[in-house]
């Protein structure tokens, strides 16, 4: 069920990230715990800042990872699968600041065996918003998913993937990502309805 647009959340003025060691957090750490595991390969530590605490809140910078991106793809011979295969390199280059985790065929199958209602919806690109997870954990909005498997044509899948990549680049610093998703991707509300009627992309993807 889609969530109401009036969820009471105070706006954040900055995207916050918390740093921790890459190998120390226990496997059963709750989502609310402040330490976030950041892989060394993709994190650039701030330089020249005396007294910076490892767990201090930092202002978001364009190079700070804001998202964790997970790709679940069992390998259905579908337009979504083909589009993702053909364009993954480009997606990866466009989202260089954010780590991308690919589950692979076996892990994806295991994942969908536990979530049967999503069989056939893959490839699924799940995006975890690290700033939201730092704020409220997983009890509230904490990211979104693109379900490429629901798209029936190559053009629809490509448009959705392009929309998705553009959205991630445009809103990396957003303090109201959920609102942006509802307006920009899901075209909710009256303005969204007008865009569906007049615009090309939303009409094509939702067709």
């Amino acid at each position, binding site marked *: 069920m*889609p*969530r109401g647009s009036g969820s009471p959340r105070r706006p954040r003025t900055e995207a916050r990230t918390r740093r921790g060691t890459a*190998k120390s*957090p*226990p*496997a059963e*750490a*709750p*989502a609310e715990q402040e330490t976030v*595991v950041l*892989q060394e*390969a*993709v994190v650039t530590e701030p330089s020249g800042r005396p007294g910076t605490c490892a767990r201090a809140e930092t202002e978001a910078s364009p190079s700070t990872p804001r998202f*964790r991106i*997970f*790709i679940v*793809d069992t390998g259905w011979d579908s337009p979504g699968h083909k589009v993702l*295969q053909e364009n*993954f*390199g480009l997606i*990866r280059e466009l989202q260089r600041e954010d*780590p*991308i*985790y*690919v*589950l692979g065929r076996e*892990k994806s199958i295991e994942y969908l065996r536990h*979530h049967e209602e999503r069989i056939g919806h893959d490839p699924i690109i*799940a995006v*975890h918003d690290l700033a939201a*997870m730092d704020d409220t*954990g*997983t*009890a*509230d*909005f*904490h*990211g*979104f*998913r*693109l*379900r490429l498997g*629901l*798209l029936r044509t190559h053009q629809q899948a490509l448009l959705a993937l392009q929309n*998705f990549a553009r959205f991630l680049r445009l809103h990396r610093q957003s303090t109201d990502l*959920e609102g942006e*998703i*509802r307006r920009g*991707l*899901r*075209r*909710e509300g009256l303005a969204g*309805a007008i865009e*569906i*009627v007049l615009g090309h992309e*939303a*009409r094509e*993807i*939702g*067709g």
Partner: protein
Amino acid sequence: MPERWSDYLTIFMSALAVGYMVYEIDRRQRKLREIFDVLDAEDAAVTARLEDMVASGELQPYTGATLV
């Protein structure tokens, strides 16, 4: 009388057209909501599982240029 009947017909057809447009917009918005699905409390377990896989090292950032 023809004029009155044509007026009724016009109103009826207009209502049908508006109703169809509302239905189509709603259908497309529902489709977009399915395609771009928001993660919330219902997805907490799924999210936690993926985050655990990252924390435990079972998942590493993908470094390849293409998917295999």
